[in-house]
């Protein structure tokens, strides 16, 4: 059987999920008897959240299982002042290149041009690119114009700029605003600083782990006794992760399980890690709506400063108040509130006209809930 066929089979195997759901229901029942009236399983990756809602997995869960979303959307936690700066630069004639995800992300201002999308409407040259490679090609074709790439993402995304920078193929007229943030530090921060967030199990991010290695999550079971599963992104992967978590809870043996071995190694992608550590250095960093989290940001190291936007402009990366009035993104992002707790949800804040950052990215919890109400219905 060829690998291609196997990949297709992965997709088709989703149909056997029903059997796994039955198993989950059984385990949940057992745990309920053991006193677990609410089991909170936090996923930590927007794509997991997407899988859960897109496939209606919440509608299939037994009553005592609550699937909650953690701070897994890099767009949602990207500081608003970055967007303000890029808007202003676009109006001064810079070309701004962004992933689709961050294109509609609002900055901190409540009036006028609020996002890169708005900026385009007002004549700014802001564009969506699929990858940093496309950004390189665009900048090369327009050597007389300055370009800025908006590098939003977690560890998964860091190689996209790190590898080309390391290999010195980035043209001079292409600057980078690094908004990279790191995931283990935020997880630690959440557990240490927000005791109100009760978490029984964690579905750890599959593609982050592909880069940093599944071992990076060992601290969760070892230090905090939280059963943790590194999982893939098919619904069946997620269901399996839930089952494994329940099983560990049942056995009271919190461990780290790697369900996504087809992609994730314990040590991760060694080459990428090496390159990233050359190009980026770790510093304390501001997360939108959350605050400054220790050792959680990736900043260009000295040898790569010539491509750093802030360095080039000669200004400082200084956060300003970017929690929009009335928006509950901070709580939603940390899994403390649900979008439906926000009074603006689906009123002044909608996917086509987002007010808060969590409504922007298709990984933002609010956006996901807006597009796929979790239903428990009979039809």
């Amino acid at each position, binding site marked *: 059987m060829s690998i291609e066929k196997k990949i297709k089979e992965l997709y088709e195997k989703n149909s056997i999920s029903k*059997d796994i759901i039955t198993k989950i229901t059984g385990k949940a029942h057992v745990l309920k008897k053991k006193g677990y009236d609410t089991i909170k399983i936090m996923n930590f990756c927007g*794509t997991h959240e997407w899988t859960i809602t897109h496939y209606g997995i919440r509608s299939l869960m037994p009553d005592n299982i609550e699937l909650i979303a953690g701070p897994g*959307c890099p767009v949602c936690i990207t500081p608003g002042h970055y967007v303000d700066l890029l808007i202003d630069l676009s109006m001064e004639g810079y070309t701004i290149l962004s992933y689709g995800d961050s294109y509609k992300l609002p900055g901190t201002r409540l009036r006028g041009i609020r996002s890169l999308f708005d900026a385009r409407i007002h004549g700014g040259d802001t564009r969506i690119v699929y*990858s940093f*490679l496309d950004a390189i090609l665009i900048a090369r074709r327009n050597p007389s114009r300055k370009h800025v790439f908006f590098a939003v993402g977690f560890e998964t995304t860091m190689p996209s700029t790190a590898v080309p920078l390391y290999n010195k193929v980035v043209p001079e007229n292409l600057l980078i605003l690094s908004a990279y943030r790191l995931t283990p530090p935020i997880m630690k921060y959440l557990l240490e600083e927000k005791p109100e967030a009760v978490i029984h199990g964690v579905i750890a991010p599959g593609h982050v782990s592909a880069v940093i290695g599944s071992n990076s999550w060992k601290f969760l079971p070892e230090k905090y006794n939280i059963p943790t599963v590194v999982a893939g992104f098919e619904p069946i992967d997620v269901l399996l992760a839930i089952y494994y978590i329940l099983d560990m809870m049942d056995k009271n043996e919190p461990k780290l399980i790697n369900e996504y071995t087809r992609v994730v190694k314990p040590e991760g992608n060694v*080459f990428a890690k090496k390159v990233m550590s050359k190009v980026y250095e770790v510093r304390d960093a501001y997360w939108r709506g959350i605050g400054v989290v220790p050792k959680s940001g990736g900043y260009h190291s000295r040898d790569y400063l010539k491509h750093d936007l802030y360095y080039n402009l000669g200004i400082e990366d200084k956060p300003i108040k970017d929690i929009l009035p009335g928006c509950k993104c901070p709580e939603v992002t940390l899994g403390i509130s649900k979008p439906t707790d926000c009074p603006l949800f689906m009123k002044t804040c909608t996917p086509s006209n987002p007010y808060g950052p969590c409504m922007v990215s298709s990984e933002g919890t609010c956006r996901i809930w807006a597009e796929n109400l979790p239903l428990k219905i009979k039809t």
Partner: protein
Amino acid sequence: MCLGVPAEVLETRKEGELVILKVKMGGVVKEVISGIPDLKPGEYVIVHAGVAISRIDEKELKEILNVWEELGSLY
């Protein structure tokens, strides 16, 4: 976060030290950056944001299919 999709490596080329892959993802062929050393045509990778961040391990893939199979039928 971090949408990643499986893709087949069709060709590899170098630009200086940078390795660029031509990969097939669904109905399209696209050039992406290699984030893994020594890839060869015919291998499968996970592509995220235009970068191949990980090989797909054929043995493990078979393994998980078996796990699923079992879980699906054992009950």
